């Protein structure tokens, strides 16, 4: 099979090469100049044909893929997402105009000024007026784009302001999945120490001595109330990851040793978003190819969390489902959750440090102190309060 393919390819190559040589040979027989002129015209026409085919293909394919395109088919599901999509659209229109005009000029000039017998080219070396115009116009357009873009950027990336009402959750990437942590009833995430990580019963290295940790829970899915500000605290346990929620226009690297954050407000519940997709042509097919009569894609739609920073061989598979629900559903869901401590640690001998707290004769005491010493050296206290966590981050960045 492989040899057949190779032989076929070799034969095709030989034929093409021979055709090329033949054409050149016949050209020299017919008179080189004439043949060259013909070839020149053919290529000039090629320029024109390419221009039309290319522009038509661009317009047609844009229309064809519009149902999945940012800002067209797939509406932003977060409040900041719309301003981002708008910036995208403004840029698309402006660059689209430039793209079309420059391409028409480029290929039209190439065609129009093809070589003709006896014709001479014009000697123009420069034109100051023209050059100033086409320097100033892009500069003005860019200024406009910079200003509108940065306005959006600074709005989107702003952290929680004092006194704002928000939910804080934490996402930790590791090879190759995410651990989501909720603060529990006290609304505060407990401190972590990477040296206490234990894949069996403490995947995040939570310090059980910290009371704030005791009600923190690790749900399978991210569940959030609609219309309420969320601050995601983003961390990584091993290598870089990236917390990427495409529908929410949200992306932020997860960096080991340096917590990052992203603040957003979900705009539609999952159910509402399904209704939006109901009319989207690319969401009409069956959700499961093997069941053509089963749920349609829009009916089975879920918001998704993905990884967007190469993190090793499982990079493409770090999926989590994000469910946006009404406040009532959210409250009900919260009640169902059991804290990680209660579920996996509490009362288990050799695992639960709180069992042996204040026992002076405890065998692990020395080791325990060691760990605390380490923590003082390098490990910063994390997440006591979001503002403190944030100032820690800034401190971190200042160091670079």
């Amino acid at each position, binding site marked *: 099979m492989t040899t057949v393919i190779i032989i076929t390819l070799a034969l095709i190559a030989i034929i093409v090469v021979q055709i090329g040589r033949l054409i050149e040979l016949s050209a020299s027989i017919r008179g080189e100049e004439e043949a060259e002129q013909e070839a020149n015209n053919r290529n000039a026409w090629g320029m024109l044909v390419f221009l039309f085919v290319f522009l038509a293909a661009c317009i047609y394919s844009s229309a064809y893929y519009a149902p999945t395109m940012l800002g067209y088919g797939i509406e932003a599901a977060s409040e900041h997402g719309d301003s981002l999509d708008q910036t995208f659209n403004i840029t698309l229109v402006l660059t689209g105009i430039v793209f079309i005009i420059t391409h028409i000029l480029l290929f039209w000039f190439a065609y129009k000024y093809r070589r003709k017998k006896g014709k001479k080219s014009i000697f123009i070396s420069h034109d100051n007026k023209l*050059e100033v115009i086409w320097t100033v116009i892009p500069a003005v357009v860019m200024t406009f784009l910079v200003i509108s873009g940065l306005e959006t950027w600074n709005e989107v990336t702003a952290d929680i302001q004092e006194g704002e009402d928000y939910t804080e959750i934490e996402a930790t990437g590791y090879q190759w999945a995410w651990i989501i942590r909720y603060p529990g009833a006290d609304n505060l995430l407990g401190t972590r120490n990477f040296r206490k990580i234990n894949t069996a019963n403490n995947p995040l290295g939570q310090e059980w001595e910290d009371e704030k940790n005791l009600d923190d829970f690790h749900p399978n899915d991210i569940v959030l109330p609609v219309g309420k500000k969320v601050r995601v605290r983003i961390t990584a346990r091993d*290598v870089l990851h990236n917390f990427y929620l495409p529908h929410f226009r949200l992306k932020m690297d997860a960096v080991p040793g340096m917590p990052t954050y992203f603040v957003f407000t979900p705009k539609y519940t999952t159910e509402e978003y399904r209704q939006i997709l109901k009319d989207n042509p690319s969401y009409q097919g069956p959700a499961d190819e093997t069941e053509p009569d089963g749920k349609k894609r829009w009916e089975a739609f*879920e918001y998704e969390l993905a990884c967007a920073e190469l993190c090793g061989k499982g990079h493409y598979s770090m999926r989590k489902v994000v469910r946006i629900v009404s406040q009532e559903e959210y409250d009900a869901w919260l009640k169902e959750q059991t804290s990680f401590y209660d579920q996996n640690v509490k009362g288990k001998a050799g695992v639960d440090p709180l069992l042996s707290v204040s026992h002076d004769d405890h065998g692990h005491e020395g080791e325990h102190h060691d760990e605390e010493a380490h923590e003082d050296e390098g490990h910063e206290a994390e997440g006591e309060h979001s503002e403190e966590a944030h100032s820690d981050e800034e401190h971190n960045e200042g160091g670079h």
Partner: protein
Amino acid sequence: MANIDTTKEAILEVGHDHGHDDHHDDHHGDKYQSSFVTRYFFSLDHKMIAKQFLFTGMFWAVIGAAMSLVFRYQLGFPEADMEWLQPLLGRWIIVQDGMGSLDPEFYYALVTMHGTILVFFVLTAGLSGTFSNLLIPLQLGARDMASPLLNMLSYWFFFLAGAIMFSSLFVSTGPFSGGWVAYPPLSALPQAASGSGVGMTLWTLSLVFFVVSVLLGGVNYITTVLNMRTKGMSMWRMPLTIWAFFVTAIIGLLSFPVLVSAMLLLMFDRGLGTSFYLSEIFIGGQALDYVGGSPILYQHLFWFLGHPEVYIIILPAMGIVSEVLSVHARKPIFGYKAMVFSILAIAVLSFIVWAHHMFMSGINPFIANIFVIFTLIIAVPSAVKVFNWIATLFGGNIRFTSAMLFAIGFVSMFISGGLTGIFLGNSAIDIQLHDTYFVVAHFHIVMGVAAFFGMFAGIYHWFPKMFGRFMNETLGKIHFWGTLVGAYAVFWPMHYLGMAGVPRRYYRFDTFDFSSSPGFDTMNQFITIAAVIVFALQILFIINFIISALKGKIVKDLNPWNATTLEWTTPTMVPGHGNWPGAIPAVERWAYDYGKDSDDGKDFISQVTPLKEGEHDGGGH
């Protein structure tokens, strides 16, 4: 020097063995070129070194492109049986139940190697190395580079870098697989990916040697341009090719050492237990001792090279295209001075935009503001260049040689890829598009395909100078049209994937709903098939290259393209060592007097022809 008659029949030096001895006495230094080894291997002649860079670059281009076919095969046909690739890829093809599939680890290794090879070995060494070496002495009127020895060493360090990289393909844990940017901790910890073991060590070593090569070459190019221009060749009379190579070398000299420092610190982290880039890591079931480092530091250092690097790639292509457009449109390059200032502006700006690769890396959002401003400012000199190229065509008398076609194709690619940069440089939009296929489409078009088009334009244009023969033009035109359509067919659809949010560097897309919308699998198949066709066309180019070099149509006219520049004033089509046997020609005017009547009835005036009384030198005004 008017005593060089460019119209007389060429004394051809096609088979290197003839002719060479005839000039023996004229060329000081020929004693170093006398044996087979010193002439073809450890050659000190810039033209031979240029060919060495070119051949090595072509070798790597084939390897790098072939790798892309394997991973494109995976992306287009994830369910296909790949067992037939087992003889080539060995245990990287996992066979289960009679079905062969590509090991994800190796998929990432292929992606990484493809990027590294194409960016550094092909588009830096293969492009800048080839044409800087060939053209700087010839177009400036110099006998050779300022230091032929460093020049030779530059090639051999490149060769060494390549040999090390090549050897890393065969280590049992596989070549490095953490992306061409090699971000730690992934690149620092062998526990994180099997390619981060020996593969990464070899990768680092290879790049360090590569940087040595770039620096040796760069020092030479800069010195030669500054000190070895012939009489009358003021900076403002230099062809834009030389300006581009000169500025490229300066950028390389200032940015590549930073890569070495980044690599050095990474080596320390890997081998000596320092914590420059690493902190609070739990991997492979244990907490590591690294505390206090920052992976972001590496990203700053890497992109301080990484961003100028894309201009190191594109500037030489821009220079070549400016030259080729002008020669074949029979018109002076429009706005010569504006072109030079654009090159300089791009060079300066290229050093203060690096963090636009890091908007989503966790840097302080405020810092992004500054980088957005500078990044979008780069669009201005880039736009000026595009307008000038288009204006060069206006009113021309265009010969559609293969070189010219590729130059026009370059402008189209540069526009398409440049405009998408305006999206990505704007941090707000980058939130969504960062690390998606939109980025892949953007940089492949603007610095991959465009740079290749510049390289092809240069090869077709200067092939007569290198080999004394023409390339087959018919095959050249098939190559051009196929590649133009094919390259757009490969990369244009990727914009739509990116706009749908599909992340890059995914081994397969069906793990998420948003990345596997209906129609995307067909699109990926289409891209893969187009990639195979484009690859086949490049093989056709190589066949054309080899056959033409050996048996192509012999160049009868010393100045086959009717060009004004000095390289076409050598008395033999393929100059011997020392380039001009007698005195070096003096330059009397700028390089772009096309469309001006000469005394002997031509439509151009060579740079060696003195200005007429009352005639203005075109470049000076």
